[in-house]
Protein backbone atom coordinates (compact mmCIF):
# COMPACT_ATOMS: atom_id res chain seq x y z
CA UNK A 1 0.00 0.00 0.00
CA UNK A 2 2.78 2.32 0.81
CA UNK A 3 5.33 3.86 -1.54
CA UNK A 4 7.60 4.59 1.41
CA UNK A 5 10.91 2.89 2.15
CA UNK A 6 10.82 -0.87 2.29
CA UNK A 7 12.18 -2.75 5.28
CA UNK A 8 13.55 -6.24 5.79
CA UNK A 9 11.57 -9.03 7.43
CA UNK A 10 13.57 -8.88 10.69
CA UNK A 11 12.76 -5.18 11.08
CA UNK A 12 9.09 -5.58 10.19
CA UNK A 13 8.48 -8.50 12.56
CA UNK A 14 9.42 -6.16 15.45
CA UNK A 15 8.09 -2.79 14.28
CA UNK A 16 5.17 -3.25 11.85
CA UNK A 17 1.88 -2.11 13.33
CA UNK A 18 3.42 -0.83 16.55
CA UNK A 19 4.47 2.58 17.72
CA UNK A 20 5.16 4.12 21.12
CA UNK A 21 1.90 4.44 23.02
CA UNK A 22 0.63 7.97 22.31
CA UNK A 23 -0.84 8.36 25.81
CA UNK A 24 2.14 7.24 27.90
CA UNK A 25 5.17 6.83 25.64
CA UNK A 26 5.30 3.14 26.58
CA UNK A 27 7.65 1.56 24.06
CA UNK A 28 6.20 -1.94 24.17
CA UNK A 29 2.62 -2.30 22.91
CA UNK A 30 0.33 -2.08 25.95
CA UNK A 31 -2.38 -4.65 26.58
CA UNK A 32 -5.51 -2.56 26.16
CA UNK A 33 -7.69 -4.56 28.50
CA UNK A 34 -10.96 -2.78 27.81
CA UNK A 35 -14.30 -3.76 26.35
CA UNK A 36 -15.55 -0.37 25.15
CA UNK A 37 -14.22 3.00 24.00
CA UNK A 38 -15.59 6.49 24.67
CA UNK A 39 -17.00 8.38 21.68
CA UNK A 40 -15.94 12.02 21.25
CA UNK A 41 -19.57 12.99 20.56
CA UNK A 42 -22.73 11.74 18.87
CA UNK A 43 -21.40 12.55 15.37
CA UNK A 44 -18.24 10.55 16.03
CA UNK A 45 -20.30 7.59 17.24
CA UNK A 46 -22.56 7.80 14.18
CA UNK A 47 -19.58 7.98 11.81
CA UNK A 48 -18.00 4.91 13.43
CA UNK A 49 -21.21 2.90 13.31
CA UNK A 50 -21.76 3.90 9.66
CA UNK A 51 -18.16 2.83 8.81
CA UNK A 52 -17.44 6.40 7.69
CA UNK A 53 -14.52 6.59 10.10
CA UNK A 54 -12.23 3.88 11.43
CA UNK A 55 -11.98 3.72 15.18
CA UNK A 56 -12.65 1.70 18.28
CA UNK A 57 -16.22 0.95 19.32
CA UNK A 58 -16.25 -2.34 21.16
CA UNK A 59 -13.60 -5.04 21.55
CA UNK A 60 -15.66 -7.71 19.79
CA UNK A 61 -14.83 -5.74 16.62
CA UNK A 62 -11.53 -3.94 17.20
CA UNK A 63 -9.00 -3.48 19.99
CA UNK A 64 -5.74 -1.48 19.91
CA UNK A 65 -3.53 -4.42 20.98
CA UNK A 66 -5.15 -6.79 18.51
CA UNK A 67 -4.91 -4.14 15.76
CA UNK A 68 -1.11 -4.04 16.14
CA UNK A 69 -0.93 -7.79 15.61
CA UNK A 70 -3.29 -7.56 12.62
CA UNK A 71 -1.16 -4.93 10.92
CA UNK A 72 2.01 -6.84 11.73
CA UNK A 73 0.82 -10.11 10.19
CA UNK A 74 -0.69 -8.28 7.20
CA UNK A 75 2.67 -6.58 6.64
CA UNK A 76 4.74 -9.76 7.01
CA UNK A 77 2.46 -11.55 4.53
CA UNK A 78 2.47 -8.61 2.10
CA UNK A 79 -1.30 -8.13 2.35
CA UNK A 80 -3.37 -4.94 2.68
CA UNK A 81 -5.08 -5.84 5.95
CA UNK A 82 -5.78 -8.64 8.39
CA UNK A 83 -8.44 -9.69 10.86
CA UNK A 84 -7.41 -11.70 13.90
CA UNK A 85 -9.79 -14.11 15.59
CA UNK A 86 -9.94 -16.68 18.35
CA UNK A 87 -8.29 -19.69 16.65
CA UNK A 88 -7.09 -21.07 13.35
CA UNK A 89 -10.41 -22.86 12.93
CA UNK A 90 -12.22 -19.57 13.51
CA UNK A 91 -9.98 -18.01 10.84
CA UNK A 92 -11.14 -20.60 8.29
CA UNK A 93 -14.81 -19.84 8.97
CA UNK A 94 -14.08 -16.10 8.96
CA UNK A 95 -12.26 -16.45 5.64
CA UNK A 96 -15.06 -18.41 3.97
CA UNK A 97 -18.03 -16.56 5.46
CA UNK A 98 -18.02 -13.53 3.09
CA UNK A 99 -17.72 -15.83 0.07
CA UNK A 100 -20.17 -18.60 0.87
CA UNK A 101 -23.88 -19.29 1.16
CA UNK A 102 -26.18 -22.31 1.19
CA UNK A 103 -25.65 -24.55 -1.84
CA UNK A 104 -22.17 -23.19 -2.56
CA UNK A 105 -18.91 -25.14 -2.41
CA UNK A 106 -15.15 -24.91 -2.12
CA UNK A 107 -12.54 -27.12 -3.74
CA UNK A 108 -10.01 -28.17 -1.10
CA UNK A 109 -6.78 -30.13 -1.08
CA UNK A 110 -6.86 -33.62 0.42
CA UNK A 111 -3.59 -32.71 2.17
CA UNK A 112 -4.87 -30.67 5.08
CA UNK A 113 -4.61 -30.78 8.85
CA UNK A 114 -7.05 -33.48 10.03
CA UNK A 115 -9.09 -31.00 12.05
CA UNK A 116 -9.57 -28.90 8.92
CA UNK A 117 -10.70 -31.94 6.96
CA UNK A 118 -13.29 -32.63 9.67
CA UNK A 119 -14.43 -28.99 9.83
CA UNK A 120 -14.74 -28.75 6.04
CA UNK A 121 -16.21 -32.18 5.37
CA UNK A 122 -18.77 -32.33 8.20
CA UNK A 123 -19.39 -29.18 10.21
CA UNK A 124 -19.72 -26.66 7.37
CA UNK A 125 -22.49 -28.82 5.86
CA UNK A 126 -24.73 -27.40 8.58
CA UNK A 127 -24.35 -23.99 6.89
CA UNK A 128 -25.28 -25.61 3.59
CA UNK A 129 -21.67 -25.33 2.42
CA UNK A 130 -19.79 -28.17 0.75
CA UNK A 131 -16.09 -28.98 0.41
CA UNK A 132 -14.84 -31.12 -2.48
CA UNK A 133 -11.51 -32.75 -1.70
CA UNK A 134 -9.10 -33.22 -4.56
CA UNK A 135 -5.45 -34.20 -5.02
CA UNK A 136 -3.87 -30.78 -5.70
CA UNK A 137 -1.04 -32.36 -7.68
CA UNK A 138 -3.67 -33.24 -10.29
CA UNK A 139 -4.54 -29.85 -11.77
CA UNK A 140 -7.11 -31.35 -14.14
CA UNK A 141 -8.92 -32.88 -11.17
CA UNK A 142 -8.92 -29.49 -9.43
CA UNK A 143 -10.37 -27.87 -12.56
CA UNK A 144 -12.94 -30.63 -12.93
CA UNK A 145 -14.16 -30.20 -9.36
CA UNK A 146 -14.91 -26.49 -9.93
CA UNK A 147 -18.47 -25.66 -10.99
CA UNK A 148 -20.76 -22.61 -11.07
CA UNK A 149 -21.35 -22.91 -7.32
CA UNK A 150 -17.67 -22.95 -6.38
CA UNK A 151 -16.53 -19.86 -4.47
CA UNK A 152 -12.99 -20.64 -3.31
CA UNK A 153 -9.98 -22.93 -3.66
CA UNK A 154 -8.40 -23.96 -0.36
CA UNK A 155 -5.01 -25.50 0.49
CA UNK A 156 -2.06 -25.36 2.88
CA UNK A 157 1.35 -24.05 1.76
CA UNK A 158 3.44 -26.60 3.68
CA UNK A 159 0.75 -29.14 4.53
CA UNK A 160 0.36 -30.50 8.03
CA UNK A 161 1.43 -33.24 8.92
CA UNK A 162 4.38 -32.25 6.83
CA UNK A 163 6.27 -33.50 3.85
CA UNK A 164 4.05 -31.93 1.23
CA UNK A 165 4.38 -28.52 -0.38
CA UNK A 166 1.54 -27.29 -2.56
CA UNK A 167 2.54 -25.91 -5.96
CA UNK A 168 0.92 -22.58 -5.14
CA UNK A 169 1.78 -20.97 -8.49
CA UNK A 170 0.03 -23.75 -10.40
CA UNK A 171 -3.04 -23.76 -8.14
CA UNK A 172 -3.25 -19.95 -8.25
CA UNK A 173 -3.28 -20.27 -12.03
CA UNK A 174 -6.28 -22.60 -11.87
CA UNK A 175 -8.09 -20.32 -9.39
CA UNK A 176 -7.38 -17.28 -11.52
CA UNK A 177 -8.61 -19.03 -14.65
CA UNK A 178 -11.89 -19.81 -12.89
CA UNK A 179 -12.24 -16.30 -11.43
CA UNK A 180 -12.05 -17.66 -7.88
CA UNK A 181 -10.08 -16.60 -4.81
CA UNK A 182 -7.31 -18.90 -3.58
CA UNK A 183 -7.15 -19.31 0.21
CA UNK A 184 -3.85 -20.61 1.57
CA UNK A 185 -3.34 -21.77 5.14
CA UNK A 186 0.23 -20.65 5.85
CA UNK A 187 0.40 -21.84 9.46
CA UNK A 188 3.13 -24.46 9.03
CA UNK A 189 5.36 -22.26 6.88
CA UNK A 190 4.81 -18.79 8.40
CA UNK A 191 5.50 -15.74 6.21
CA UNK A 192 9.21 -16.14 6.98
CA UNK A 193 9.42 -19.35 4.94
CA UNK A 194 6.61 -18.76 2.44
CA UNK A 195 4.66 -15.72 1.25
CA UNK A 196 1.62 -17.18 -0.52
CA UNK A 197 0.42 -13.80 -1.84
CA UNK A 198 3.61 -13.61 -3.96
CA UNK A 199 2.50 -16.93 -5.51
CA UNK A 200 -1.01 -15.69 -6.32
CA UNK A 201 -2.99 -16.37 -3.12
CA UNK A 202 -5.96 -14.08 -2.54
CA UNK A 203 -6.31 -14.76 1.18
CA UNK A 204 -3.93 -16.24 3.74
CA UNK A 205 -5.18 -17.86 6.93
CA UNK A 206 -3.20 -18.71 10.04
CA UNK A 207 -3.45 -20.51 13.27
CA UNK A 208 -1.39 -17.93 15.18
CA UNK A 209 -1.30 -20.49 18.00
CA UNK A 210 1.64 -22.15 16.27
CA UNK A 211 4.91 -20.56 15.09
CA UNK A 212 3.71 -16.96 15.15
CA UNK A 213 3.26 -17.20 18.93
CA UNK A 214 5.93 -19.86 19.11
CA UNK A 215 5.66 -21.16 22.63
CA UNK A 216 2.31 -22.89 22.97
CA UNK A 217 0.70 -20.24 25.18
CA UNK A 218 -2.44 -18.96 23.44
CA UNK A 219 -4.78 -19.91 20.62
CA UNK A 220 -5.50 -17.46 17.85
CA UNK A 221 -6.17 -17.13 14.15
CA UNK A 222 -5.78 -14.57 11.40
CA UNK A 223 -7.16 -13.88 7.91
CA UNK A 224 -4.96 -11.74 5.65
CA UNK A 225 -6.30 -10.19 2.46
CA UNK A 226 -3.94 -9.60 -0.47
CA UNK A 227 -6.23 -6.83 -1.76
CA UNK A 228 -5.72 -8.29 -5.24
CA UNK A 229 -9.10 -9.88 -5.97
CA UNK A 230 -11.80 -8.04 -7.93
CA UNK A 231 -14.93 -8.94 -5.94
CA UNK A 232 -17.12 -7.05 -8.42
CA UNK A 233 -15.87 -8.82 -11.56
CA UNK A 234 -18.75 -11.31 -11.30
CA UNK A 235 -21.97 -11.53 -9.31
CA UNK A 236 -20.55 -14.45 -7.28
CA UNK A 237 -19.58 -12.43 -4.21
CA UNK A 238 -22.62 -10.31 -3.29
CA UNK A 239 -21.49 -9.88 0.33
CA UNK A 240 -18.70 -7.71 -1.03
CA UNK A 241 -20.13 -6.36 -4.28
CA UNK A 242 -23.88 -5.89 -3.66
CA UNK A 243 -25.67 -3.47 -1.28
CA UNK A 244 -25.38 -4.57 2.36
CA UNK A 245 -28.77 -4.21 4.10
CA UNK A 246 -27.19 -4.01 7.57
CA UNK A 247 -25.32 -0.84 6.49
CA UNK A 248 -28.12 1.03 4.67
CA UNK A 249 -27.23 -0.43 1.29
CA UNK A 250 -23.50 0.31 1.36
CA UNK A 251 -21.43 -1.75 -1.12
CA UNK A 252 -18.19 -2.86 0.55
CA UNK A 253 -16.05 -3.27 -2.55
CA UNK A 254 -17.17 -0.03 -4.17
CA UNK A 255 -16.73 1.94 -0.95
CA UNK A 256 -13.49 0.52 0.44
CA UNK A 257 -11.73 -0.61 -2.75
CA UNK A 258 -9.04 -3.18 -2.04
CA UNK A 259 -9.62 -2.85 1.72
CA UNK A 260 -13.19 -4.18 1.34
CA UNK A 261 -12.59 -7.75 2.47
CA UNK A 262 -10.89 -6.65 5.71
CA UNK A 263 -13.59 -4.06 6.46
CA UNK A 264 -16.18 -6.79 5.91
CA UNK A 265 -14.28 -9.11 8.25
CA UNK A 266 -14.57 -6.58 11.05
CA UNK A 267 -17.95 -5.02 10.32
CA UNK A 268 -19.85 -8.22 9.53
CA UNK A 269 -17.60 -11.15 10.44
CA UNK A 270 -16.45 -10.20 13.94
CA UNK A 271 -19.58 -8.16 14.65
CA UNK A 272 -21.95 -11.05 14.01
CA UNK A 273 -19.89 -14.23 14.40
CA UNK A 274 -18.07 -12.86 17.45
CA UNK A 275 -15.04 -15.18 17.28
CA UNK A 276 -12.80 -12.39 18.52
CA UNK A 277 -9.16 -12.56 19.60
CA UNK A 278 -8.67 -11.15 23.09
CA UNK A 279 -5.94 -8.56 23.79
CA UNK A 280 -4.00 -10.88 26.13
CA UNK A 281 -3.70 -13.45 23.35
CA UNK A 282 -2.65 -10.72 20.91
CA UNK A 283 0.06 -9.65 23.38
CA UNK A 284 1.58 -13.14 23.61
CA UNK A 285 1.51 -13.50 19.85
CA UNK A 286 3.08 -10.06 19.36
CA UNK A 287 5.94 -11.15 21.64
CA UNK A 288 6.32 -14.26 19.51
CA UNK A 289 6.40 -12.46 16.16
CA UNK A 290 9.36 -10.34 17.31
CA UNK A 291 11.61 -13.42 17.11
CA UNK A 292 9.84 -15.29 14.30
CA UNK A 293 12.70 -15.34 11.78
CA UNK A 294 15.28 -16.32 14.42
CA UNK A 295 13.16 -19.20 15.65
CA UNK A 296 12.19 -20.41 12.19
CA UNK A 297 15.85 -20.59 11.15
CA UNK A 298 16.57 -22.86 14.13
CA UNK A 299 13.37 -24.89 13.65
CA UNK A 300 14.38 -25.57 10.04
CA UNK A 301 18.04 -26.29 10.87
CA UNK A 302 17.01 -28.83 13.54
CA UNK A 303 14.34 -30.38 11.32
CA UNK A 304 16.86 -30.88 8.52
CA UNK A 305 19.34 -32.58 10.89
CA UNK A 306 16.74 -34.84 12.50
CA UNK A 307 15.05 -35.80 9.24
CA UNK A 308 18.40 -36.78 7.74
CA UNK A 309 19.35 -38.79 10.84
CA UNK A 310 16.03 -40.61 10.90
CA UNK A 311 16.11 -41.35 7.18
CA UNK A 312 19.48 -43.09 7.63
CA UNK A 313 18.28 -45.15 10.60
CA UNK A 314 17.46 -48.84 9.90
CA UNK A 315 14.51 -48.76 12.34
CA UNK A 316 12.77 -46.23 10.10
CA UNK A 317 11.01 -47.09 6.83
CA UNK A 318 10.93 -43.58 5.43
CA UNK A 319 10.71 -39.90 6.33
CA UNK A 320 8.36 -37.51 4.52
CA UNK A 321 10.18 -34.19 4.74
CA UNK A 322 10.30 -31.98 1.67
CA UNK A 323 13.70 -30.73 2.77
CA UNK A 324 15.19 -34.18 2.05
CA UNK A 325 16.54 -34.84 -1.44
CA UNK A 326 14.55 -38.10 -1.46
CA UNK A 327 11.28 -36.15 -1.27
CA UNK A 328 9.24 -35.87 -4.50
CA UNK A 329 8.55 -32.27 -3.39
CA UNK A 330 12.20 -31.30 -2.85
CA UNK A 331 12.27 -29.16 -6.00
CA UNK A 332 9.29 -27.13 -4.76
CA UNK A 333 11.21 -25.95 -1.68
CA UNK A 334 13.47 -23.66 -3.71
CA UNK A 335 10.49 -22.08 -5.47
CA UNK A 336 7.76 -21.96 -2.78
CA UNK A 337 9.64 -21.75 0.54
CA UNK A 338 13.30 -21.07 -0.25
CA UNK A 339 14.33 -20.54 3.40
CA UNK A 340 13.35 -24.11 4.27
CA UNK A 341 10.66 -26.76 4.21
CA UNK A 342 9.44 -26.06 7.75
CA UNK A 343 9.89 -28.17 10.84
CA UNK A 344 7.09 -30.70 10.51
CA UNK A 345 7.48 -34.17 9.13
CA UNK A 346 6.18 -37.67 9.50
CA UNK A 347 8.19 -40.81 9.98
CA UNK A 348 7.11 -44.35 9.07
CA UNK A 349 8.33 -46.64 11.82
CA UNK A 350 9.14 -50.31 11.25
CA UNK A 351 6.70 -52.26 13.39
CA UNK A 352 3.61 -50.22 12.48
CA UNK A 353 0.92 -48.99 14.86
CA UNK A 354 2.27 -50.71 18.01
CA UNK A 355 5.85 -49.52 17.50
CA UNK A 356 4.56 -45.97 16.95
CA UNK A 357 2.68 -46.03 20.24
CA UNK A 358 5.80 -47.38 22.04
CA UNK A 359 8.03 -44.75 20.44
CA UNK A 360 5.76 -41.92 21.57
CA UNK A 361 5.65 -43.38 25.09
CA UNK A 362 9.43 -43.78 25.22
CA UNK A 363 10.41 -40.18 24.37
CA UNK A 364 11.65 -37.98 27.24
CA UNK A 365 12.25 -34.55 25.62
CA UNK A 366 9.57 -34.69 22.93
CA UNK A 367 6.10 -33.98 24.35
CA UNK A 368 3.10 -36.01 23.26
CA UNK A 369 0.62 -33.24 22.44
CA UNK A 370 -1.87 -32.24 19.75
CA UNK A 371 -0.08 -29.07 18.74
CA UNK A 372 2.75 -27.91 16.52
CA UNK A 373 5.00 -24.92 16.16
CA UNK A 374 6.15 -24.83 19.77
CA UNK A 375 9.73 -24.07 20.90
CA UNK A 376 9.50 -27.55 22.47
CA UNK A 377 9.76 -30.56 20.19
CA UNK A 378 6.44 -32.34 19.90
CA UNK A 379 5.31 -35.74 18.73
CA UNK A 380 1.96 -37.24 17.94
CA UNK A 381 0.66 -40.46 16.52
CA UNK A 382 -1.88 -38.83 14.20
CA UNK A 383 -3.86 -42.00 13.40
CA UNK A 384 -4.82 -42.49 17.04
CA UNK A 385 -5.38 -38.77 17.83
CA UNK A 386 -5.73 -35.75 15.49
CA UNK A 387 -6.67 -37.82 12.45
CA UNK A 388 -8.74 -40.37 14.41
CA UNK A 389 -12.05 -39.15 12.94
CA UNK A 390 -10.85 -39.82 9.38
CA UNK A 391 -11.20 -43.04 7.41
CA UNK A 392 -7.99 -45.01 6.78
CA UNK A 393 -8.11 -43.78 3.18
CA UNK A 394 -8.37 -40.13 4.35
CA UNK A 395 -5.58 -40.72 6.89
CA UNK A 396 -3.28 -42.04 4.21
CA UNK A 397 -4.15 -39.21 1.79
CA UNK A 398 -3.28 -36.76 4.55
CA UNK A 399 0.04 -38.55 5.25
CA UNK A 400 -1.19 -39.80 8.61
CA UNK A 401 -1.38 -43.56 8.19
CA UNK A 402 -1.30 -45.93 11.20
CA UNK A 403 2.49 -46.54 10.90
CA UNK A 404 3.30 -42.81 10.86
CA UNK A 405 4.41 -40.56 13.69
CA UNK A 406 4.37 -36.79 13.22
CA UNK A 407 7.12 -34.61 14.64
CA UNK A 408 7.12 -30.86 15.19
CA UNK A 409 10.77 -30.08 15.72
CA UNK A 410 11.55 -27.44 18.33
CA UNK A 411 14.52 -25.21 18.93
CA UNK A 412 16.41 -27.35 21.48
CA UNK A 413 19.92 -28.76 20.86
CA UNK A 414 19.69 -31.07 17.87
CA UNK A 415 22.08 -33.57 19.48
CA UNK A 416 19.82 -33.92 22.53
CA UNK A 417 16.81 -34.51 20.29
CA UNK A 418 18.68 -37.15 18.29
CA UNK A 419 19.76 -38.94 21.50
CA UNK A 420 16.17 -38.93 22.75
CA UNK A 421 14.89 -40.37 19.46
CA UNK A 422 17.62 -43.00 19.48
CA UNK A 423 16.75 -44.36 22.94
CA UNK A 424 12.98 -44.27 22.23
CA UNK A 425 13.40 -46.10 18.92
CA UNK A 426 15.34 -48.80 20.75
CA UNK A 427 12.43 -49.17 23.18
CA UNK A 428 9.93 -49.23 20.29
CA UNK A 429 11.71 -52.12 18.59
CA UNK A 430 11.65 -54.34 21.71
Amino acid sequence: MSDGPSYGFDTLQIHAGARPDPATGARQTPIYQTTAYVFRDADHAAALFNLQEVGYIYSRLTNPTVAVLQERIATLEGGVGAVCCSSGHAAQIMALFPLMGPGLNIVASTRLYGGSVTQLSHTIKRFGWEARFVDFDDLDAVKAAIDDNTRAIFCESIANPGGYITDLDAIAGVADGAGLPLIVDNTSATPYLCRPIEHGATLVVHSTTKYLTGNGTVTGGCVVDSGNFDWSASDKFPSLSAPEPAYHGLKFHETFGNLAYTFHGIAIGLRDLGMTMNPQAAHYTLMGTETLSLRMERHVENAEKLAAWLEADPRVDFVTYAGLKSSPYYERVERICPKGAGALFTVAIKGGYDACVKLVNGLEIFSHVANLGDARSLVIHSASTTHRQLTTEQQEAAGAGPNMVRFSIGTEDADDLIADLDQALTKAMN
Partner: protein
Amino acid sequence: MTKNPSDELLRKILTESKVFACVGLSMNPVRPSYFVARYLSLKGFKVIPVNPGHAGKMLFGQEVRADLASIPADSTVDVLDVFRRSEHVLPIVTDALARLPGLKTIWMQIGVENAEAAALATEQGVQVIQNRCPKIEYQRLFGELRMGGFNTGIISSKL
Protein backbone atom coordinates in the same frame (compact mmCIF):
# COMPACT_ATOMS: atom_id res chain seq x y z
CA MET B 1 1.02 0.83 -13.78
CA THR B 2 0.48 4.32 -12.46
CA LYS B 3 3.34 5.93 -10.59
CA ASN B 4 1.90 7.72 -7.61
CA PRO B 5 3.69 10.17 -5.32
CA SER B 6 5.60 9.07 -2.24
CA ASP B 7 4.08 8.97 1.23
CA GLU B 8 6.05 12.13 1.99
CA LEU B 9 4.44 14.01 -0.88
CA LEU B 10 0.96 12.66 -0.08
CA ARG B 11 1.40 13.85 3.49
CA LYS B 12 2.40 17.30 2.23
CA ILE B 13 -0.61 17.48 -0.13
CA LEU B 14 -3.03 16.43 2.62
CA THR B 15 -1.48 18.83 5.13
CA GLU B 16 -1.16 21.91 2.93
CA SER B 17 -4.36 21.68 0.88
CA LYS B 18 -7.41 23.52 2.20
CA VAL B 19 -10.07 23.33 -0.51
CA PHE B 20 -11.27 20.27 -2.45
CA ALA B 21 -13.65 20.48 -5.42
CA CYS B 22 -15.36 17.09 -5.75
CA VAL B 23 -16.64 16.44 -9.27
CA GLY B 24 -19.40 13.85 -9.47
CA LEU B 25 -20.21 14.03 -5.76
CA SER B 26 -23.39 12.12 -4.94
CA MET B 27 -26.03 13.32 -2.45
CA ASN B 28 -26.73 9.68 -1.52
CA PRO B 29 -25.19 8.99 1.91
CA VAL B 30 -24.12 5.39 1.09
CA ARG B 31 -22.21 6.35 -2.07
CA PRO B 32 -18.40 6.37 -1.80
CA SER B 33 -18.17 9.99 -2.97
CA TYR B 34 -20.47 11.11 -0.16
CA PHE B 35 -18.35 9.10 2.33
CA VAL B 36 -15.17 10.78 1.13
CA ALA B 37 -16.56 14.32 1.01
CA ARG B 38 -18.16 14.01 4.44
CA TYR B 39 -14.93 12.68 5.88
CA LEU B 40 -12.81 15.44 4.36
CA SER B 41 -15.19 18.11 5.63
CA LEU B 42 -15.07 16.56 9.14
CA LYS B 43 -11.27 16.81 8.97
CA GLY B 44 -11.56 20.55 8.33
CA PHE B 45 -11.21 20.69 4.55
CA LYS B 46 -13.58 22.93 2.61
CA VAL B 47 -15.35 20.61 0.17
CA ILE B 48 -17.07 22.18 -2.83
CA PRO B 49 -19.53 19.72 -4.39
CA VAL B 50 -19.79 19.77 -8.19
CA ASN B 51 -22.80 17.98 -9.65
CA PRO B 52 -25.16 19.54 -12.23
CA GLY B 53 -28.03 17.31 -11.07
CA HIS B 54 -28.09 18.89 -7.62
CA ALA B 55 -26.90 22.47 -8.34
CA GLY B 56 -28.06 24.96 -5.73
CA LYS B 57 -28.58 22.42 -2.94
CA MET B 58 -26.39 22.55 0.19
CA LEU B 59 -24.01 19.77 1.31
CA PHE B 60 -21.61 19.94 4.27
CA GLY B 61 -22.24 23.70 4.50
CA GLN B 62 -21.34 24.36 0.87
CA GLU B 63 -23.54 25.05 -2.17
CA VAL B 64 -23.49 22.35 -4.85
CA ARG B 65 -22.12 23.85 -8.08
CA ALA B 66 -23.30 22.85 -11.54
CA ASP B 67 -19.77 22.94 -12.98
CA LEU B 68 -16.27 24.21 -12.33
CA ALA B 69 -17.13 27.56 -13.93
CA SER B 70 -19.73 28.16 -11.22
CA ILE B 71 -17.21 27.97 -8.38
CA PRO B 72 -16.81 31.51 -7.00
CA ALA B 73 -13.46 33.09 -7.79
CA ASP B 74 -12.69 33.67 -4.10
CA SER B 75 -12.63 29.90 -3.46
CA THR B 76 -9.16 28.88 -4.58
CA VAL B 77 -9.39 25.15 -5.23
CA ASP B 78 -6.25 23.26 -4.16
CA VAL B 79 -7.37 19.74 -5.10
CA LEU B 80 -9.71 18.59 -7.85
CA ASP B 81 -11.11 15.22 -6.69
CA VAL B 82 -12.63 13.27 -9.59
CA PHE B 83 -15.45 10.80 -8.98
CA ARG B 84 -16.19 10.16 -12.67
CA ARG B 85 -15.37 7.20 -14.87
CA SER B 86 -11.94 7.22 -16.52
CA GLU B 87 -13.32 7.96 -19.99
CA HIS B 88 -14.97 11.19 -18.76
CA VAL B 89 -11.87 12.55 -17.06
CA LEU B 90 -10.07 14.33 -19.91
CA PRO B 91 -12.60 17.18 -20.50
CA ILE B 92 -12.94 17.70 -16.73
CA VAL B 93 -9.19 18.04 -16.31
CA THR B 94 -8.87 20.30 -19.36
CA ASP B 95 -11.61 22.53 -17.95
CA ALA B 96 -10.04 22.54 -14.48
CA LEU B 97 -6.59 23.51 -15.80
CA ALA B 98 -8.19 26.43 -17.67
CA ARG B 99 -10.52 27.67 -14.93
CA LEU B 100 -8.85 26.97 -11.59
CA PRO B 101 -5.69 29.07 -11.49
CA GLY B 102 -4.52 28.00 -8.02
CA LEU B 103 -5.04 24.28 -8.65
CA LYS B 104 -2.13 22.23 -7.26
CA THR B 105 -3.36 18.64 -7.34
CA ILE B 106 -5.66 16.50 -9.47
CA TRP B 107 -6.79 13.42 -7.57
CA MET B 108 -8.58 10.59 -9.41
CA GLN B 109 -10.44 8.16 -7.17
CA ILE B 110 -10.01 4.37 -6.94
CA GLY B 111 -10.67 2.84 -10.36
CA VAL B 112 -10.21 6.18 -12.14
CA GLU B 113 -7.16 6.62 -14.38
CA ASN B 114 -6.54 8.68 -17.50
CA ALA B 115 -3.00 8.87 -18.83
CA GLU B 116 -3.71 11.67 -21.32
CA ALA B 117 -5.30 13.89 -18.68
CA ALA B 118 -2.49 13.09 -16.27
CA ALA B 119 0.17 14.05 -18.82
CA LEU B 120 -1.63 17.30 -19.58
CA ALA B 121 -1.81 18.26 -15.90
CA THR B 122 1.77 17.23 -15.18
CA GLU B 123 2.95 19.42 -18.10
CA GLN B 124 1.31 22.40 -16.43
CA GLY B 125 2.97 21.70 -13.11
CA VAL B 126 -0.07 20.18 -11.42
CA GLN B 127 0.50 17.09 -9.26
CA VAL B 128 -1.52 14.05 -10.37
CA ILE B 129 -2.66 11.12 -8.23
CA GLN B 130 -4.62 8.30 -9.87
CA ASN B 131 -6.54 5.27 -8.63
CA ARG B 132 -6.32 6.34 -4.99
CA CYS B 133 -8.73 7.73 -2.42
CA PRO B 134 -7.79 10.81 -0.35
CA LYS B 135 -9.89 9.53 2.56
CA ILE B 136 -8.08 6.17 2.65
CA GLU B 137 -4.68 7.85 2.21
CA TYR B 138 -5.47 10.34 4.99
CA GLN B 139 -6.58 7.48 7.25
CA ARG B 140 -3.47 5.47 6.39
CA LEU B 141 -0.93 8.26 6.79
CA PHE B 142 -2.38 9.81 9.94
CA GLY B 143 -2.93 6.63 11.92
CA GLU B 144 -6.64 5.95 11.59
CA LEU B 145 -6.40 2.83 9.40
CA ARG B 146 -3.97 1.42 11.95
CA MET B 147 -6.97 1.00 14.26
CA GLY B 148 -8.51 -1.43 11.78
CA GLY B 149 -5.46 -3.67 11.36
CA PHE B 150 -4.54 -2.42 7.88
CA ASN B 151 -1.02 -2.45 6.48
CA THR B 152 -0.14 1.25 6.65
CA GLY B 153 3.50 0.75 5.67
CA ILE B 154 4.48 3.17 8.44
CA ILE B 155 7.41 2.26 10.69
CA SER B 156 8.34 4.82 13.32
CA SER B 157 9.88 4.90 16.80
CA LYS B 158 8.53 8.42 17.40
CA LEU B 159 5.55 9.37 19.53
